[in-house]
Structures are given as structure tokens and as C-alpha cells.
């Protein structure tokens, strides 16, 4: 097995793939909540992905990737046995929910992959969490069986009601918050979803951790591209995060910063599709 070879590739939902990469050096010290930066080929850009699982024995690291842009589309063209140009990590800080006992996990879209290892770990530690996962439609709900196994209460939600309840993760969260009592929430997903969860949990004074995934270049604090405002201070997602106190994150700014390279990204996609916009 060669460094950075794809060990497995599994389609989990429409445009969502799970990749297992052979990277023993990364797997050796990897912990849930950290991320990796990869380049697909020698000309590729550096793109960060949160680790959703790893095996120290096998020397592998698992990431979940939704095809949303040039690099993720390029990645989707790779097959088992193909080799990534680069795969570096583990970067950032691991998730730390150790000081909380009753925890609510909320995952949106492929963000559910990031809360999955927490659900598994909390179950193993005898303090299973309540888990809400949401997606636009049933095909996009991931790891349902696993969550059902590890969660205390498992609440899938879809925007269109095609699976589980119809609505948003915040609808279920609100009801749970009204009847249950929690020490903390951990929410991972698209920025608008994390913002909505934080607005809700704030009303209940429930400490809430979110995982940010901004644009990055080096991932080691060098470029400052991933900066965001937390509690009025500039913080770097790569070295200070990626997890932050969700009640203090400036989501508005984070959303605006994520759009910085949108036009150029579309240009690249156009090239990948052979000139079709």
C-alpha cells in the first residue's frame, strides 16, 4: 500500500462519497474533530476536510466529501487504488466534549459525518447523546443505522419529509430543548444551519460548540485566510479551531468570506465540464 492511496470509496448519497485514505502518519495521532488538507494531483489546490473516522491499526483516515466544486469533483473521479498527491494532518484541535454529560448532537448534511465519531464515543463512554440529523431529502441523510445504534434518542429530519420528520433540525431541537435538559450542544453543518442552531440554543443558554470549515491554504496558521471573528477577536480556524463557541462566532462574516472565490470556482468548474456552465 502506498502513501495517500485510496483504500475504499463508497457512495453514501447523491454527490456524497466516503473516502478511506491510506495515511499511517496522519492516522497515528489523529483524533475526532481534526481535519486534513489534501491535493488531488500535482496541479491541485489545497482543500481542508474534517476527519470523520480513522484506524490506527490500518493506518487509514476517512473523510466524507460532497461534490460542490472543482476539487471535490476531481476527487469523485478517483477510484480505489488511485493516489492523492498530498494528504497532510491531523490539523487543528480535536473535539473536546469531556466536561459535559448530557449532550445534544446536531448534524446538517455531511456535517453529520463530523458528529458521528462523537455519537460513537459518547455511547462507548456510557453517556449516549441525543442526535438530530437533517438533510434536504432522504437520500442525503447519512449514517442513519449507525446513529440509531449509538444515540440515546435519534431524530432524522428532512426538508421535504421524505424520511423522518418534515422540517428543519431546529424544529426538533426546539422541542427537545423544551422538555429535556442538556449540558451542551455540538452542531456541525452548513453555516446557516449552525447559525440557526446557535440562535436557538442561546435562548436556552445552552453552551454550543460548532465546527467551522472556511477556505484555507496551508492549514498551519501561515496564511490567515481562514480567519473569523469570535467574541470580537480574530481567530484562525486552522490553529485555534476548527471548533468554537457557537454563541460567539460571527456567522454573517463567515458566510461572506466563504463567497470570496466563488466566481473563480465557477470558472474552474466550467473548465472541468468542458466549457459547460
Amino acid at each position, binding site marked *: 500500500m502506498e502513501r495517500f492511496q485510496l483504500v475504499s470509496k463508497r457512495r453514501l448519497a447523491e454527490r456524497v462519497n466516503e473516502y478511506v485514505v491510506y495515511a499511517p502518519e496522519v492516522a497515528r495521532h489523529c483524533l475526532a474533530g481534526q481535519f486534513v488538507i489534501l491535493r488531488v494531483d500535482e*496541479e491541485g489546490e489545497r482543500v481542508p476536510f474534517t476527519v470523520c473516522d480513522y484506524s490506527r491499526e490500518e493506518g487509514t483516515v476517512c473523510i466524507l466529501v460532497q461534490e460542490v466544486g472543482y476539487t471535490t469533483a476531481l476527487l469523485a473521479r478517483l477510484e480505489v487504488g488511485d493516489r492523492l498527491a498530498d494528504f*497532510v494532518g491531523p490539523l487543528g484541535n480535536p473535539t473536546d466534549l469531556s466536561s459535559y454529560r448530557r449532550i445534544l448532537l446536531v448534524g446538517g448534511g455531511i456535517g453529520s459525518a463530523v458528529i458521528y465519531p462523537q455519537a460513537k464515543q459518547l455511547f462507548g463512554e456510557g453517556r449516549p447523546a441525543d442526535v438530530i440529523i437533517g438533510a434536504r431529502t432522504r437520500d442525503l441523510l447519512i449514517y442513519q443505522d449507525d446513529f440509531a445504534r449509538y444515540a440515546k434518542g435519534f431524530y432524522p429530519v428532512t426538508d421535504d419529509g421524505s424520511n423522518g420528520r418534515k422540517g428543519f433540525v431546529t424544529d426538533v431541537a426546539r422541542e427537545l430543548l423544551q422538555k429535556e435538559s442538556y449540558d451542551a450542544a455540538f452542531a456541525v453543518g452548513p453555516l446557516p444551519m449552525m447559525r440557526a442552531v446557535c440562535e436557538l440554543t442561546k435562548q436556552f443558554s445552552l453552551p454550543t460548540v460548532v465546527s467551522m470549515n472556511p477556505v484555507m491554504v496551508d492549514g*498551519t496558521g501561515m496564511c*490567515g485566510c481562514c480567519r473569523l471573528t469570535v467574541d470580537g477577536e480574530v481567530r484562525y480556524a486552522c490553529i485555534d479551531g476548527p471548533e468554537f463557541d457557537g454563541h460567539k462566532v460571527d456567522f454573517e462574516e463567515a458566510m461572506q468570506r466563504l*463567497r470570496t472565490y466563488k466566481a473563480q*470556482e465557477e470558472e474552474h468548474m466550467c473548465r472541468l465540464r468542458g466549457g459547460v456552465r
Partner: protein
Amino acid sequence: MNLLRHTVPAQLPEERIKNFDEVSLGFTPELALAESERCLNCKNAPCMTGCPVGVHIPEFISHVRTGDLDGAAEVLLRDNNLPAVCGRVCPQGNQCEKLCVRREKLGGSVAIGALERYVADHAKAKGITVSKKEKTEAKVAVVGTGPASLSCAADLAKAGVGVVMFEALHKPGGVLVYGIPEFRLPKSVVAEEIAKLTDMGVEIRTNIVVGKTVFLDELLAEYDAVFVGTGAGLPSFLHIKGENLSGVASANEFLTRVNLMKAYKKDAVTPVQRGRNVVVVGAGNVAMDAARTARRLGAEVTLVYRRSRAEMPARAEEIEHAEEEGIRFELLTNPVEILGENGSVTGMRCIRMELGAPDASGRRRPIPVEGSEFAISCDEVIVALGTTPNPIIKRSFPALETTPKGTIAADEEGRTSVARLYTGGDAMTGAATVILAMGAGKRSAHAMIEELKKAGKIR
């Protein structure tokens, strides 16, 4: 004999702002010979005292004068592990050339830097390398692959020490690769200098972040000694309103996208902002690099600096080149706020400054002139205000003592608070120059070699 210093041929400004090719074309053989004849071969060699790596300057220039370029190369390579780099990026005007006896009185200092480059390029073309001792059992880990680390690794390898270098990025070279632009330091030059090291048996492992992928205590357990040359990574910002708008980047980000990720090339995948009107804040070498890079990407560029021209920290040549390329300087000017609309930059509000009494740095302190605020219209801002040390190493290895500034605490030879752990370059001093980092790497290498000798690991 012509007493005046010879000018190094360069691409014309109107041509070079359209490409990323090297600006300086280097001496021709005729110019190099003529310039070498200007060296007075001073007995006490004041120029040498200005060289952080102690190059035997009059000696190598004497070889040039007699047409013995191989001999010149051997002299140069004895002391300088990266001469093709130094000949291009060293601030010679503040070092060797500043101490040249000729200076103002005798037609200007000898163009030592340009001669160094000339000889180094000859050595490269002819494949002249230094001799190295037989490989020993000793092995040292070098963290980072920038100038301090490369210089340290080279001297260790020359002494027969086995060296493994660890690089966080996908390509080795550190600031020489991600920071300094192609038009000032071609990446092929850096690649060849690095190839010299690997030819000497130095192993380079990319994609390894020490403090994340592997920890310092693991390296200390596996190697006889460890050198940390991780540079000053974290960019400083202005801490003014509007700094997180889209279109505001650190010079590190902008230059990394362009240099390391090749975003200036048409088919590059990595995007970069291509503003029409770019404001660069700062006046060091990095600010000049950013301004001139933005110019080559097609922008009108204004450089904003709070002090006056005399205090600009960049190399004189870079400042001149920037001006020739049409970079506008707004001196004695400080940004107050970055203006934006819909999340993107539209301008910068500035205030004029005047110089007061000297501050701790010895430079006159800039003071805002009340009521002098004005706005510059722009669609991109690049902040080049220096960098602070990267905290990854420290956070992952608390035993390592740091200074209040966050740099790694160490003695003259780079010994840290941890036995067998050395440091040098920007990680130890804070942001400085390539050559100072190289000097530090060299000093640490020699201290390590002494230690290894004492321990009986090498002879």
C-alpha cells in the same frame, strides 16, 4: 579602469510588469570580470564582517578576476550553502556592500551580491559541489525546510551527519518557495539548491507538520539532535474595521497563492484575488513582493506606509524596482478603516502621519495628523505588516521555553531550554532575513557537530 560600479542588466520595467520572469538578468562574463577588477582585495576585508555566513569575499572575487570561476565557486560554497539564493535576495546594501571601502568615495561599493550570483550560477551550471565527509551513525532531524533549516542541514550533511528534514507543505523551501516571488527568485534556482542537499544524502519528508503529525519528543527520542527552523509563520493584521471583508488578505496568503500554488498561471486551479486597484500596507521586502506581484496580475498598486521613505525596511533595489514598475507610494500614511459594500472591499480610509521623536526601534515615531483623513478607492487590500511565530510547536511541546514575543528562547548557538533541541532563524528571532536565518542555521549546525563529537558519534 572604470571606477564606477557596474549596473546589473535587468528586464525593462514596461516589459517585466507583464511577466513573472526574473527581473535581474545577472552580470555578463564581461561585466563580471570588469566588476571583479574593482575589488581592492583589502587585507582586513571589512566586507566579510558584514556577512552573516562569513563568505571569503575578496578571495572569491580574486578568482573571478583571474578567470578561475571554478575556484571562485569552491571558495563561495565553502561558507555559503545557498549562494544562488543569497546572490539574489540578500540585503547586501546593509551587509557586505555597506562595509566595502569603495562605497561613496570610490565609485560605489563592489557589486558583491551580483558577483556572488554570477559565480553561484556558474557552479550550478557546471555541477560544482562541496566535498563531504564519510557518512556517520549520527542523525539529526531538521524541522522546516526554509533558509535556516537548509543551511543547517547542509553543514550537518557536509560533516557526515545523516539528516532528515520535515516540511509541513507539499513542497520544500519554506519562504523561498511560498513567499519570495518567481521574478525575484526563480523557483528552479531554489529547486536546484535543494537538489544539491538531497544529492548529499539529506532526506526531505513533505506533508509532515511537526507538532501535529509527529511530535518533538518523538523526534528527540529517534534522533541525536533536533533543529527547529519553523520560521515566523503567523501574519499580523491591522486590527481595524473592515479587515475581514472579502478582498483583504495577508501578504502571506496572497503570495502563497501566487508562488506556491502558481495562481498567476492561466490554468492554475488555486484562485487568487485579481483586483484592479490594490492597496498594499507595509514597506518591507514582503510588501514590495506583494505590490509587484499584484502589478504583474494587472493591478494599479498603491503602497501605504506610515513612516517616510528613509525608514522603509525593504532592500533598496526592491524599492527602486517597485517604483520603476509604477507602484505608487503613499508615505506617512496609515490605514484607519477598510471600507466595504456587500462584504467586499471598496476602499480604504487613511490618515496622514508626521514623524515625532525616535521610538524604541530608534526610528522616529509616526504620529497621526489630526483632521487629515482621506479615502483611497480600491477593490483589494494586502496586509504586509510582518509575522509572528507560529504557535503549533510551542502548544504541542510546552517544555520548550519561549520569549514573551512568542519566539523560541535560545542562546547564541541556538540551544533551547530542552537538551539536544536547537533553533534558529525567524522561529528564534522573529521575522528577519534569509541570510540571518542561514547564519543561525549554520551556527546551530556547528554547535550540534561539536556535541556529536563529544558524544563520540562523529569524529
